[in-house]
């Protein structure tokens, strides 16, 4: 599977570079929302245990970071290579004078893929593109509990990993100022979560015997800034 993705990406990039009217590189940052239903179920089950803790984080939207290399094949269509990093988490906590207890589910992902974009309006200054990306990523989750009573602290944690595939359709508005490009992207991540397991292949299981996974599906809203490279740069200038 990995090979197929890599080959597709290389073909896309090679074709793009050969046929490109312009090349640009972009940095993106923005906010993502994450479904994390199974993670929330796990947090709810843990909360029902004997500890008096309360949820202080329920897998909130959090910053995502990304970068892309885009190749404009003609005036309306282009392809890109895309990489993105994001994270979120859930926390149960209880603290008083005697100590504290905390249960953390910290998740982060690193994914990359290819995308394409097609201009869907006629504006040259504010072109609007429909975009779609195919992404493959790796999820890491750290589940830990920490108990501190006085000077005594007990900490336990486990590391889980998963491989995810996702498809993200979206819209992108772009504006060019000289050699600088500015983008605003809005996408909907549709993810196929992989099995979340530790090195021994064991997964966390809910009381209903369903395995816990990392559901990164959600909205993605980013802003980007980049440089226009290649031949279109002079023409535009």
């Amino acid at each position, binding site marked *: 599977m990995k090979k197929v993705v890599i080959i597709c990406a290389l073909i896309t990039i090679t074709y793009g570079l050969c046929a490109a009217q312009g090349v640009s590189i972009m940095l993106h940052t923005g906010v993502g929302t994450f479904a994390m239903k199974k993670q929330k179920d796990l947090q709810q089950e843990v909360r029902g245990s004997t500890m008096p803790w309360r949820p202080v984080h329920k897998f909130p939207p959090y910053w995502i970071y990304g970068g892309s290399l885009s190749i404009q094949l003609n005036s309306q269509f282009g392809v890109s290579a895309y990489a993105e990093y994001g994270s979120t988490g859930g926390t149960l*906590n209880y603290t008083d004078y*005697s100590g504290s207890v905390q249960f953390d589910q910290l998740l982060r992902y690193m994914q990359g893929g290819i995308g394409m974009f097609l201009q869907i309006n006629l504006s040259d200054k504010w072109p609007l593109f429909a975009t779609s990306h195919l992404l493959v990523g790796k999820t890491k989750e750290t589940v830990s509990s920490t108990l501190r009573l006085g000077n005594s602290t007990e900490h336990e944690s486990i590391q889980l990993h998963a491989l995810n595939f996702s498809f993200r359709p979206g819209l992108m508005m772009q504006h060019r*100022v000289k050699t600088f490009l500015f983008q605003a992207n809005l996408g909907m991540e549709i993810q196929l979560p992989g099995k979340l397991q530790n090195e021994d292949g064991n997964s966390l299981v809910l009381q209903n015997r369903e395995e816990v996974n990392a559901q990164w599906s959600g909205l993605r809203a980013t802003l980007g800034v980049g440089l226009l490279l290649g031949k279109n740069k002079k023409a535009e200038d």
Partner: protein
Amino acid sequence: MLRCLQVLSLIIIAGFTFQRCTFEPDNQFINPIPPPEPLTVTVEVNDPNFKSPYYIVEPTTFIFTLKDLTKPMVDYVISIDGDDFASGAEAPIYFSLTPYHIPSGSHKVTMRVRAKTNSGSLAEQLDAEYYVIEKSFTLINDRTIPSSLNPTVAYENGRLAISWSAIPQKNFYYVIKRTYSPYNPLPDTIIRNTELSTFIDNGYTGGDITYTIAVSGSGFERVDLGTVTFKDDPVDFQVVEGEEKSVRLIWNNSKIDTQNIELAIDTDGQTIKVPLTSSGNMVIDTLVLGEERNYWIKTSEVGNWRQVYSRMKGVKYPSQIKPFKSHALLVDQNRLLLLTSNAIYEYALPSLILEDSLLAQSDHKFSGFAITDDGNRAVLTTEKGRLFEFNPLDFDAPLSELGLFAATVPYTGGTDPIYDVVLGDLSRNGLLSMVIGKYGSRTQVVYDINNSAVPWYAAPFRYLNEVHPPSISSDGRYLASDYPGSSQGEVYQWNGAAFDQIGRVATGPKFFRPGNREIISGTWKDDDYQISPGSVRIYDLNTLPADPMQTLPLLRSMEFANLVGDSYFWSIGYDQRTDIFYTRYVENVYSTLTLYDANTMALLDKVSAFTYSPSVHFFESNYQITDRGSMEYVK
């Protein structure tokens, strides 16, 4: 526009620069509860006087009491020298130790209690937060037996105190053993305060008691260290006759403190209980004439029935006169004559001063006498049946023996010697009634002491039934007699030379009322010692029946009920001076005379005296007299 893009670029750069790339928890739920307040708890071991070091002397249960502990206990651990010995989670906190199982020497006993804080904190919920209450004491197991001691005993502040030299050791407790003879066994007293060297016996109120000081401890039990004996009566009780025949209990200056001491007087099944005082004088009883009575005088601490000390004290009604066999009350001469085996005594009335006596000579023993109602003539008889006339008012006058034997031989069945004479009445004209006893016979006889003749006699009776002398009126005019076995008695009248029968009356003792108008016959069902019903019948002597074998006219009569309570009807008597007849019954040792007016048959009074059943109890001229030597005027 350019400016907007510049701002957008700054936002993006700031996002990369200042935002954390990876999500990290940065929030907490803080419960603002306060930590628990310090807890002040007082731990008591066994009792407030418990002291460390503690010498274990016997199997002992130690109880830890946590006062003011307002929090629930989680658990406790008892350790000895650091080794856990007992544990639990519920009060009471206790454990038991046996000296036998503990090595000699000093040991540290520690109790550690954990109690909930109820703070609700995380640590408390995880059983990591609790109050810790700790109490330790030193336990010593010493098996050394204390040395002997010399106890002494003496009164101290009104209580009997046993003292001994103090023992410096503390590895024992005292056992005070008391042997209180011959009374109830007394429980031992345990004294755990080894610093004491005195034992106060608050219950001692007299008697013979032995105290033994023993000790018990680890490895030794009830080892006697010393003994002391004491005997005393700390209250000198006296029982004396008081006024009006009352009995008084008198005591002075009790040696013992009378607080919480009780005095009990037991007599005749009744008990008087009063608090004992240092001195006292109280009426506890009333006597009857001649009574002797014993009283149990008991003292004891209130509620301490085991240590009652009893003393028997007696009182005796004073004897004004000597015990006697026969008596005569010479009212006109204010004299009382008493006859004993050895003498006749003359007392002045009413002073009862002994004025004279007539002693029996050589081997003569007086057995009885008879004196005329006017006190002018008297006859006495000896135990061998000899008869003497004497002057009842002048004992110096010589006695003259009367020739009874020769005169009575024709009437008494032969020449056998007289061994017994029972005298009856002596009339002023010298007629003396009697029963002459010879071997195998008894004969009723009237003997004329003036003429040494026998004007009347009955056939000798040859059985052993009691034969009573005939009754003769004081002037000698009438005679009445019962023949044993006969259902009726006969009444005779003196004709100047002999007695003629004039009629019959009921059997029983007979008495002539003054003036010779009537004769009283007291009758019981059978002979002596019979239970009632009895009766008293009074017959008319002035209206004689035509046939002397008929009964005289009956004027009045009285029937006595059968068995009054548990009393017995014993006898009937009559006092001519007061014209009172009386019945007598005896209960236990008390003789009671019931007095009736012979004229109206009305009940007059009851008088009692202390005497026994064969003894006599008379009512005569308003005196009641017993042959035990008691006499009093009946008002």
